[in-house]
């Protein structure tokens, strides 16, 4: 197993709050890593640090052995480390089809001059983009909504669209921020299957999620955060028995069953 992503001593302070405190963890190629923790544990902040929405106060982030701290987000995405958002998952005013095209633009941009002149390479590229948009929509079961505005989609499909947008750039690692939040059982199953399938294609997935059942069923390993600190990292079966984790979730006085 090779390590694709590794953090060392990662910390982020917001005023007096240590949102992420000295977190070290590593992600192995091809795994689904779950990140769980009570509200405010620093899960989303951790994703924001890795994708450099804001820089960490201290610590290193190594991606394929190379430090990516301070890289602009678009460059990190272009390197294959892509994240999705909890709320704004898509361009809500654009159609689903347009969303799939837009999702590919940044990765395949051929430079201002070529794009302006619409050279042969650019035309060929947009033909490939159209094909890919079509196959992505089929793959995620979104082709029925092709011409609908993204905001008019049922909530579950909006989340799927977000996943498709993240997947469109052929990432090495896809970081999903609560993809299942607010979904019903059906939608949740569809999403879980989609994640499992893209993982089966060799994609590494980092999953921030509240839903225990989903995380335990889907993830190969789970990282547990509490008050910004890493309290456990193990396979799901061990996490469920971990005393620290149970304490964090249920309080100190809870008797272990």
């Amino acid at each position, binding site marked *: 197993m090779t390590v694709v992503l590794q953090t060392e001593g990662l910390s982020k302070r917001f005023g007096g709050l240590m949102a992420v405190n000295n977190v070290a963890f590593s992600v192995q190629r091809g795994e689904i890593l779950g990140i769980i923790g009570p509200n405010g544990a620093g899960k989303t902040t951790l994703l924001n640090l890795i994708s450099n929405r804001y820089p960490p106060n201290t610590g290193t982030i190594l991606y394929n052995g190379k430090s990516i701290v301070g890289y602009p987000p678009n460059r990190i995405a272009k390197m294959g480390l*892509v994240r*999705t958002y909890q709320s704004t998952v898509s361009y809500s005013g654009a159609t689903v089809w347009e969303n799939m095209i837009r999702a590919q633009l940044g*990765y395949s941009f051929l430079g201002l001059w070529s794009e302006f002149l619409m050279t042969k390479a650019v035309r060929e590229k947009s033909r490939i983009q159209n094909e890919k948009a079509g196959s992505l929509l089929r793959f995620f079961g979104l082709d029925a909504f092709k011409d609908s505005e993204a905001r008019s989609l049922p909530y579950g499909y909006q989340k799927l669209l977000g996943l498709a947008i993240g997947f469109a750039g052929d990432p090495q690692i896809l970081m999903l921020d609560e993809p299942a939040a607010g979904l019903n059982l059906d939608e949740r199953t569809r999403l879980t299957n989609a994640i499992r399938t893209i993982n089966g294609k060799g994609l590494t997935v980092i999953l921030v999620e509240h839903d225990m059942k989903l995380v335990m069923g889907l993830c190969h390993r789970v990282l547990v955060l509490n008050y910004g600190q890493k309290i456990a990292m193990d396979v799901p079966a061990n996490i469920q028995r971990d005393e620290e984790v149970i304490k964090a979730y249920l309080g100190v006085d809870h008797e272990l069953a």
Partner: protein
Amino acid sequence: MLMNKTSIGFSKIQTLAVWMLVVFLFFLPVLSSDEFYLNIVISIYLQIILAVSLNLIIKTGKLSFAHAAFMGIGGYTSAMLVMRLKLPFVLCLPLSGVMAAAIAYVVGRVLLKLEGVYFVLVTFAFGEVVRLFFVNLVVPFGGPTGITNIPAPVITFFPGYTMTFLSKASYYYLVFIVMLMTLLIIRRIYRSAIGKIMDCTRETEHLAEFTAIDTFQCKMFAFVVGSFFAGLAGSLYAHYYRYISPESFTFWETVNLVIINVVGGMGGILGPILGAIFLVPLPEFLRGFVEYQRVLYGLVLILTLCFMPAGMLGPLGRIASRLKSKYMTKEGIE
């Protein structure tokens, strides 16, 4: 299949209509040599260049209040180059654009890092700084009185054949051609992937950023190219009125351009074109009420925002799509 065929038919009609319009406008000075009307049309063309190039910047989600300042930079550059360095106009026109673009590049690297209203405020301040720069530097720029006796453009088409663009009709062609080039270039940008990237940047910047779109580069591009065309318009303005002063390029000129964009509709290049055609002639026809021009513009702006939030493009677009669907069903029956 059928839909495809007929929609091509419709766009063919559109293309034909646009070409007919261009040919008509090309012969306009021949049809009417009335200087009053030609002057209005030339002002409209200048405002179209400015409003569409401002639209390019707005398309990336940045509202620049320095657009008139860049126009001023272009105007002063052109006037100085022609009068002091005696450079030919054909060189000064593009150079004035390049000067505006170069300054936009330098200030853009800093200003475009600012978000939302801070960018608006700082571009406003920058515009004032530029204006005061021209006001206070009496030696090269003439101070508050500006530069007078700017020569009309002289273009040598080939050795032995030079033309002076002194008459309204000849100047009409100069501005017309520059406007057409501006529109073609900006339309091309809007239709390319660059235009789509601008939409992404404006609508949801962080999503664009996290799908590998370099939003800063996108904004820089729009700011520099938009300012380039503002510089061109400034040069054309200077050599048309043959007089410029810092008062020609104030904050209020930019406000007018923004109003043109809002009233016309900001969705594409058609909006600012319509806005300019509608708004620029208004004060000309209400000469007796010049002091009420701002009131009038304000009124138009308020009415537009109340009744046509998408600008004139809103209702016009609806009519066009109705015509389109009508046309397509007709075709379908046949």
